[in-house]
């Protein structure tokens, strides 16, 4: 029964089957899970913006009444100016000029406070969030390691390029001061046009309550982020919001992503699970075939043991022990292979035109069920072998010798 060659064959078949069982559905499951997480983080949001206008409170109330709208975050986007001395430009003339003092405006928000950007949506990729100090976080497109942005009309190589720790002379609501870049926000297509993020407490202390209240505290938001219940609701809610908005406001969401995410969750992920199940069924069939070959080839051992007083139950225990050992070894190999191989499976999605790469991982559910299956398969294989021997009868078993 315990011939090394056949044992290796059984371990090989079981390992490949259990690997398929763990790996294939895991890929589907983790990609689906990661995509769902990403979808819930970005895909279920709609941003509303317009150049210069104010969103009426009545409009906000109407939006909040749309079924599927979970939360609305209204805030104020205004401008911060970078003051650059001795700025080189051609000004479109073909000849270089030096401008002694130039101001470059970018969109900015306060984080927290009335009219402020919701802190929960601010994620940093490096550095820290600005505190009660002259400091700001910035969008990745301002990062000084980015490729130069060329403005043909101005002939400017790059207006503003900063990195964490850089100091800049800025102007906001007429107040000039030096500030430090302390953090870089993660790419988020929802508000990629917002370049700077200030701390609201700092700004109130710096500008004074009156000026602060005039700028941010009078319910004159010009930017909304709307949280929707699910990705599936996004197109419908986005369309409903668009109908409520006066020009120049518009609702932004990624319809293609919303559809892709839905399609993945409802079609692709179950397909992975079906493939995994088919692999498993195929492996069980092969395992039984191999176990039958093993039992048939050396059935005389079982016959000999029965003539020496062994009970069928004891024979079943012997086969179970043998197959269980092989199954455990196979499971251990399959788990290691699955964990190692899963890192090679990644999927790329384009969300709001941003490339998102999601890596697969061995799903603990399939690892645990893989172990249970290995145990059950060994017990079931032993049972079928013993049933087959019983059908052969002792005389038939011994005749195989």
């Amino acid at each position, binding site marked *: 029964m*315990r011939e090394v060659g056949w044992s290796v064959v059984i371990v090989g078949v079981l390992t490949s089957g259990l690997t398929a069982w763990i790996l294939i559905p895991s890929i589907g499951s983790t990609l689906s899970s990661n995509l769902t997480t990403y979808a819930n983080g970005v895909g279920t949001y709609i941003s509303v913006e317009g150049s210069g206008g104010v969103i009426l409170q009545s409009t906000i109330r109407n939006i909040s009444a749309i079924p599927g709208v979970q939360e609305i975050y209204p805030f104020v986007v205004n401008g911060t100016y970078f003051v650059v001395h001795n700025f080189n430009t051609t000004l479109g003339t073909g000849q270089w000029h030096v401008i002694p003092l130039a101001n470059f405006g970018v969109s900015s928000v306060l984080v927290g406070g009335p009219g402020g950007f919701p802190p929960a949506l601010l994620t940093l990729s490096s550095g820290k969030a600005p505190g009660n100090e002259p400091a700001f976080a910035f969008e990745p497109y301002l990062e000084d390691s980015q490729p130069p942005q060329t403005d043909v009309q101005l002939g400017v190589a790059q207006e503003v390029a900063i990195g964490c720790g850089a100091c800049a002379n800025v102007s906001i609501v007429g107040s000039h001061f030096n500030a430090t870049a302390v953090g870089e926000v993660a790419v988020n297509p929802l508000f990629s046009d917002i370049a700077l993020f200030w701390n609201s407490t700092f700004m109130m202390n710096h500008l004074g309550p009156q000026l602060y209240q005039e700028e941010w505290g009078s319910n004159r938001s010009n930017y909304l982020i709307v949280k929707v219940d699910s990705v599936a609701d996004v197109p419908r809610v986005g369309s409903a919001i668009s109908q409520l908005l006066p020009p120049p406001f518009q609702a932004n969401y990624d319809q293609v992503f919303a559809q892709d995410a839905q399609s993945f969750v409802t079609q692709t992920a179950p397909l992975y699970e079906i493939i995994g199940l088919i692999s498993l069924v195929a492996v069980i069939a092969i395992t039984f075939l191999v176990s039958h070959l093993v039992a048939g080839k050396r059935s*005389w*051992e079982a*016959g*000999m*043991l*029965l*003539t*020496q*007083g*062994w*009970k*069928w139950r004891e024979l079943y225990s012997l086969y179970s022990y043998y197959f269980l050992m092989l199954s455990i070894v196979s499971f251990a190999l399959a788990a290691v292979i699955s964990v190692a191989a899963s890192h090679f499976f990644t999927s790329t999605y384009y969300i709001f035109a941003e490339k998102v790469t999601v890596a697969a991982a061995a799903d603990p559910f399939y690892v645990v069920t893989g172990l249970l299956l290995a145990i059950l398969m060994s017990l079931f294989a032993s049972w079928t072998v013993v049933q087959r021997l*019983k059908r052969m*009868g*002792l*005389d038939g078993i*011994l005749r195989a*010798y």
Partner: protein
Amino acid sequence: MIKLEGVYKNYGAIRVLEAMDLQVEEGKPLCLLGRSGCGKSTLLKLVALITRPDKGILTIDGKDVTKISDPEMDELRREKVSYTFQEPLLIPYITALENVTEVTGAPKEKAVKVLTQLGLGDRLNHRPPKLSGGEKKRVDLARAILRGTPILIADEPLSNLDPETGEKVMELLKAHADKGGVLVYSSVEPSETKYASQVVNMEKK
């Protein structure tokens, strides 16, 4: 006691036993004598409860085995019968001693004693591929003796054995009968019938 009345046994279209009558009593060894293919092994398998008669009555200690279920026959075989094969069946990847202790569950000391009595004292830790045909046969016999069942069936126990070793083997088998056990063995050599109280001459059908 074993009793056969009008027993028939076929293998496919080949009739191996026909209207066989036989009675074996405790303490009276029986030898089945005949050439190869005459049905000795088939008859031994019948009395060893490895197979059933196609027709006729086979009783062991008064119990008609043709009328009992497979599990009941398994149980009866376990309790009553030890069987040694014409070609010894040993597990090749364990030692001679383990082939006795692991298979029969006999204590190691008793197994060593019997194997030594059979002239295998220096071969205990050898695996079957390293043993001669006669040595393998003796390991198989040791198992049957150690199981201690009332009925001992031996299929050509003296084949492949030199006369001296054969004598030792038969002493042990006879000792089983002398203690009141049932012993049935087969042989192709008329000279080997000397250990038996009864001899059945068998001819090919």
